[in-house]
């Protein structure tokens, strides 16, 4: 791979993370437990979709084959997607949505904090702008993990179950492959493996306050960097891409 191709790949990973999680959160629209939370989840979803627009637009320019953000979002099939497996997992109940969000918010905060001093000015700018949003996302999801964990017996159990179910998707966030290494070497990307201790410290602090146990599961899955996804991504894309497939290049 040329440097250009690696940067394209790297931007896809960042952009796809935001877009798929944003799409998942949009599924809560009209279904959240209360109106206030309905708005909060869709706000956060829109923040994420906004991030993905900037990243995928840039990715398209770097690739130089005439693909814009819409082309990349609506005309790629599952194997071409690079989002973390965690983010395509179904919403489940509210606790599960919050567990997924909490794991990613803490990770994304650390990742974007480092990216905001990237040598690639465009990446640094997108990261710095997004960091304010992510700071709020992290506050929102941390608050809910604490509320549910340190809430009623039922909410505690649901929150603990959610953490346990998603824990196996955590290690993939900190994986490094040749593309990551090259981006770090160029001063563009982040050494995500080095973020793990900070992630653990933040997550442990919230779990302690929430009276929740750090999950102890032995399984873990990965594969998104090679386009290997769970069956859920196909369903997300089927819904998200339907309109552009049925009515190609439709405009509002």
């Amino acid at each position, binding site marked *: 791979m040329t440097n250009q191709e690696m940067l394209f790949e790297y931007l896809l990973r960042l952009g796809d993370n935001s877009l798929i999680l944003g799409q998942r959160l949009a599924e809560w629209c009209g279904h959240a*437990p209360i*109106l*206030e939370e*309905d708005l909060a989840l869709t706000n956060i979803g829109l923040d994420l979709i906004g991030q993905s627009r900037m990243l995928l637009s840039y990715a398209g320019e770097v690739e130089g084959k005439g693909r814009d953000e819409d082309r990349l979002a609506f005309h790629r099939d599952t194997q071409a997607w690079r989002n973390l497996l965690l983010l395509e997992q179904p919403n489940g109940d509210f606790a599960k949505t919050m567990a997924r969000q909490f794991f990613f918010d803490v990770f994304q905060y650390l990742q974007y904090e480092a990216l905001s001093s990237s040598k690639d000015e465009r990446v640094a700018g997108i990261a710095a702008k997004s960091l304010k949003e992510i700071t709020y996302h992290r506050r*929102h999801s941390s608050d809910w993990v604490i509320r549910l964990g340190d809430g009623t017996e039922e909410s505690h159990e649901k929150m603990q179950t959610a953490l346990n179910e998603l824990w196996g998707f955590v290690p993939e966030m900190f994986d490094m492959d040749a593309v990551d290494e090259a981006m770090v070497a160029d001063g563009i990307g982040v050494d995500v493996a080095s973020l793990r201790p900070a992630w653990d410290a933040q997550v442990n602090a919230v779990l302690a306050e929430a009276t929740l146990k750090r999950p102890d599961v032995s399984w873990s899955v990965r594969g998104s960097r090679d386009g290997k996804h769970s069956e859920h991504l196909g369903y997300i894309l089927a819904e998200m891409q339907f309109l552009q497939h049925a009515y190609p290049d439709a405009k509002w």
Partner: protein
Amino acid sequence: MTKDTHDELPLYEVFIRSKNGLDHKHVGSLHASDAEMALTNARDVYTRRGEGVSIWVVKSTDIVASSPEDKGNFYEPSDDKLYRHPTFFNLPDEVGHM
């Protein structure tokens, strides 16, 4: 959004200051389990379009309101006291919000 959930969460009134120098204005109400959640909910519900720089929330039950029956003895006595209104001054534009 079941009725039960809302019945359990107390109501808060939300006041937002749209910019420095202006007063906080009542913008509406929302449900939250405590003040901290009311504040974040208010942020999400009422400031999505850049409406505010500061938020106050207060439990609806903590607001003491005058009752409509008091209208007569509360407000009518001032109706005929025009001399209390500073209506005879022209305010220079530079004064801004008063």
